[in-house]
């Protein structure tokens, strides 16, 4: 048989954690949380543009995912699965709460001030949220934070791959300019 060398890809680690949860294994939830919480939070933040709502959505996503784990079927796209749960929860929030989102940039900045993080981190997050369009920031966060491949993003957002790639590059360039220009932006 041919030689098998193996480095476990992230998607596989996530799959394993979800199986572990389904299987009642201790620590699997924590592992899944460590692997995916920042991506889920970042995604929720790009959709809701509201720190508090994003935190709610993140919690709900994990709880929902925990319930759904026994029925989970891996298609090697666990991150996409989790983010689709998060997206539905964001939509629920929109429906149930008309006040939601479109906080002003100033309100968002004030919210971010409550987060313990350094200046650069806040600048990056705020720039993503206020300088990029909804679609651009979703693409950036899914790939840069969630590690979702461009092809998969294209499928999820129903966009041609080239569009995703060019939007991604353009967005990255915008952020790069902002970061290099310091806080003048």
């Amino acid at each position, binding site marked *: *048989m041919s*030689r*098998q*060398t*193996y*480095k*476990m*890809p992230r998607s*596989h*680690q996530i799959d394993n954690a979800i*199986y572990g*949860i*389904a*299987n*009642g*294994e201790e620590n699997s*939830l*924590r592992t899944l*949380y460590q692997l995916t*919480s*920042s991506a889920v*939070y*970042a995604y929720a933040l790009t959709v809701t543009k509201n720190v508090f709502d994003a*935190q709610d959505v*993140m*919690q709900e996503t*994990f*709880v929902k995912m*925990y319930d759904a784990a*026994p029925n*989970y*079927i*891996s*298609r090697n796209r666990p991150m996409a699965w989790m983010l689709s749960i998060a997206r539905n929860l964001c939509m629920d929030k929109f429906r149930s709460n008309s006040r939601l989102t479109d906080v002003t940039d100033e309100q968002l900045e004030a919210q*971010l001030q409550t*987060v313990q*993080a*350094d200046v*650069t*981190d*806040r600048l*990056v*997050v705020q720039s*993503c949220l206020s300088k990029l369009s909804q679609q651009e920031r979703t693409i950036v*966060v899914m*790939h*840069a*934070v969630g590690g979702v491949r*461009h092809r998969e993003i294209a499928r999820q957002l129903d966009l041609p*791959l*080239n569009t995703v*790639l060019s939007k991604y*590059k*353009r967005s*990255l*360039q915008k*952020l*790069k*300019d902002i*970061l290099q220009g310091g806080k003048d932006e």
Partner: protein
Amino acid sequence: MNNKQTEKQIGQSFSNVTPDVYNDISARCPTRAAVKRQRSANWGWKLSTCALALVLVVAIVFGGVMLGTQGRQSAVAATVTLDVNPSVAIELSTDQVVLGVKALNKDGERILGDLDLTGSNLQTAVYAIVGSMTLGGYFSVDNSVLVSVDADQSLYQSLVDKVTSEITVILGSQNVQASVLSQWITQSESAKSIAQQYGISSGKAQLIAAILDASQNAYTAEQLAKLNVNELNLIIESLNLPQDVLSHNGNNASQSRYIGREEAINKALEAVAADLTLSSLSQTDVSRLQCKMDNDDGVMVYEVELVYNDWEYDVDINAITGAVVKLEKELQNYRPYDDATRTKLSEEDIRNLVRSMFDLPQNQWVQVSYDRDDGVYEVKVNPNQGKFYEIEFNVYGDVISFSEEEIEIMPGPVEDQWQGGAPGDQYSAVMNYVITQLENIYKQPIDRSKMIDFTYKLDDDYRSRNVWEVEFKYQVGNIMYEYECSVDIDTMEIIEQSRDIDD
């Protein structure tokens, strides 16, 4: 700041602002009773078709019935991990009943399939797992197993003895002489970080950390993480790992996958004879002959060293194909000297000398640099497809060191300053093709010698294909363009490409 760094920064920043709500979530997720693990249906082979599997299943059912499930509620008292290439962890209760068996990698999942070993005893579980690995073909050429025990040290020896003897018996019945490595898991920080980074078992990670230590970092963790236990075992044989770090049942790692030491030495002697234009060379003609196994960028090689006359040779032989991967020679004890009767050569003279050595045309690129301190010309040239040479000449044009290496068609991540390069070699052919395609797409001729920040690397997005990601910048008037292109170098398909304005 380049794109990759920006990407990394975004990932980090979002991670840093993410609030930690794990405890809130955990409180809302009630502990769930163990449910049979669901799997996707595409795991290739079926156990039930094999006779040995029947025996295993009987053994497991029988073992399970005999031992009941008295251990189920107990806490895990010890974990025994078996690494071959499949990695599997067996969790044991205080009375050494199996509480659970976990696959730690994909091969592990494949060999476990739907086996439920809960409630059986340790030997039965080892028997089933190793038997399943045998059926899966993991011992058809290899014979190494790493046994790692995470338990109170007082339990260590008895657990290792049980597991080792079980493995020896099963493999013995298949005429395989098992080489069993065993270690006590010490939970070192270095091993933990390797395990996490490369998604491998903590046992394999600890072994890799030990190899890195003993070899004084002659390897990288990334390189070693890709190897199976038999390959690691072969490397260990050339190192002196202390007994308290790793114990060994005394059998050598299998080399049956490889051509063997004698054959490797013969191949190396042939190569040296050819280099010296001798008709043949035997072991008795040379001195300081050494041969050990090593891994060179993922390829197992025999490293043969020998001295003939004043030349010290270092020849790497591909352990599977027997091909010469690398040939290096160096004049022993060379010191620069002055000889008034001989003419000192210029850089251009050296360039011409090299062209005549390799029968190259006048316009062939030959990189020559002069090291003033050593009084040596250093030359780099890749005159033909797949070979790369580095040669040192003294000022009179005598070769004082020489190295010939195969160019990997799949280099690891590398950065380069390719600016047209040598025509004819595969690397340049790919690059020229890519750039010609980009010229056609954007209707913009590109002067190869004026490209800036030219880099290429293997594109990680396409794990199963040889895809190169080529990037460079190119100025047209006042505008600096950034080109990116991914090309499958086996089919020459341009998979993705883009051009942006870099400002």
